[in-house]
């Protein structure tokens, strides 16, 4: 593993260059350009606010529903964008993989970083919403680094795993959107964790995104539904996911060029 990190460091400029490429290409020949990064979570927030906030009257507690939804859709959109692009990254860059050598994990990593760029763009809206809804901006905001880094690791791990699998089984391309859709409903994004009947709540905790999303929301909006133990557990799960994804990816990496 040490050798991988040394090599990755050696190729850091390539990681940067490919991340820039991802960002540029995604918004080339679009009229709105980078604004799409903001529009995606914003549009979802509006839809969910209308359907779940107004029609179905989901109880978001003291927090107004729009910012309640956005505070979870922001990291969630990062997760889905990164995983969707990351899963396809190796196959989509097949011409590179079969013609040039470089550590292949750079491909899913650059997809994740490009999605992270979108996340940072969309965070600007979040900041504006925090001000608009007069949520106190306390030092708690700095604690957001914990869920953000955890989500990054978790997302990278899943992307590594799926991109390596997708080289062999192109089914992944069809499976990913489906799973992400189901996963959204299995995570307290549009509803609060407290609304889940208590005897089923422990089931939710098997989903690592539950505590990652919840702790992000908690730190930003000063709610207190996640315990320190849960946060600690989600960090461990994220790190493990990353390591396992990395190991699997490296284990399969050598045959990529032969199979693509």
């Amino acid at each position, binding site marked *: 593993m040490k050798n991988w990190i040394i090599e990755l460091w*050696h*190729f850091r*400029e*390539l990681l*940067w*260059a*490919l991340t820039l*490429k991802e960002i*540029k*290409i995604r918004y*080339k*020949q679009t009229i709105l350009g980078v604004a799409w990064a903001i529009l995606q979570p914003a549009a979802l927030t509006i839809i969910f606010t209308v359907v779940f906030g107004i029609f179905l009257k989901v109880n978001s507690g003291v927090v107004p529903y729009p910012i309640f939804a956005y505070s979870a859709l922001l990291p969630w959109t990062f997760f889905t964008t990164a995983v969707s692009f990351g899963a396809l990254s190796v196959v989509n860059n097949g*011409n*590179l*993989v*079969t*013609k*040039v*050598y*470089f550590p292949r994990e750079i491909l899913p990593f650059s997809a994740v970083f490009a999605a992270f760029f979108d996340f940072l763009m969309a965070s600007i809206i979040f900041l504006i919403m925090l001000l608009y809804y007069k949520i106190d901006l306390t030092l708690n905001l700095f604690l957001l680094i914990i869920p953000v880094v955890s989500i990054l690791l978790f997302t990278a791990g899943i992307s590594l795993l799926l991109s390596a699998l997708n080289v*062999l*089984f192109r089914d992944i391309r069809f499976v990913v959107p489906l799973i992400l859709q189901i996963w959204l409903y299995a995570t307290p994004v549009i509803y609060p964790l407290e609304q889940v009947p208590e005897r089923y709540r422990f089931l939710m905790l098997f989903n690592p995104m539950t505590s990652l999303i919840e702790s992000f929301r908690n730190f930003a909006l000063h709610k207190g539904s996640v315990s320190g133990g849960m946060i600690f557990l989600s960090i461990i799960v994220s790190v493990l996911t990353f390591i396992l994804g990395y190991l699997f990816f490296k284990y*399969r990496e*050598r045959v990529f*060029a*032969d*199979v693509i």
Partner: protein
Amino acid sequence: MKKKENNFVVSFENVTKTYKISKGKYGLLTEMFSGTLGSVFNNEKNNSIHIALKNISFNIKKGDAVGIIGRNGAGKTTILKLISKITYPDKGSVNVYGKIGAFIELGAGLHHELTGRENIYLYGAILGMTRKEIDEKFDEIVDFAEIKKFLDTPIKKYSSGMYSRLGFSVCAFCDPDLLLVDEVLAVGDENFQRKCLKKMHSFANEKTVIFVSHNMDAIKSICSKVIYLDRGKIQIIGNSREVIKEYLDDQ
């Protein structure tokens, strides 16, 4: 590390490379868990194996200019791919020392939505150059490729000649210890072909070049040594004039 090996830039020892041509639907699934589990499910009839290279050994010394010739499917490109670590041998070992500049296919690594300028930086990074190095070489690359006027045009608008010129120039200026070139001369006009050959000539004087081509005149003019491959085996290896004569006689 062994003492002698420092003289060799590339050394192949009993290298065999096969490709599995899976026909069965679950072939890949069983391959993935090859070994105990794989052998239970693996039906030999479902997988045919193509042997790309059969037990090949050779060494290339620093400063050599080596040509690889042979008919289509003889394994020429596979050798280049093994050297550049794109693929790995099934048996035997491949050792390479130094920085590789591989130009295995026209335009690999170039992205058609990006401009010429963006592509120089992207492809340079792919070839392991730092941003600073690219900055320094930028003008030379652009001059050599003759694309100054189209630097800020997306390269999907480029002609295929411009495409290959851009690819070759970035590769040639990334200052590798070992330059791998696969059939660049099939495209581009005569003027550019001459320029490429000249560049490879001057490169061959100080560094190592491995050159795959069907153009025997080009091979003769650049390479001192030639490997003649036939269906995955080395037919002859030696002085370029003699090997080429043998190859042409076989045709």
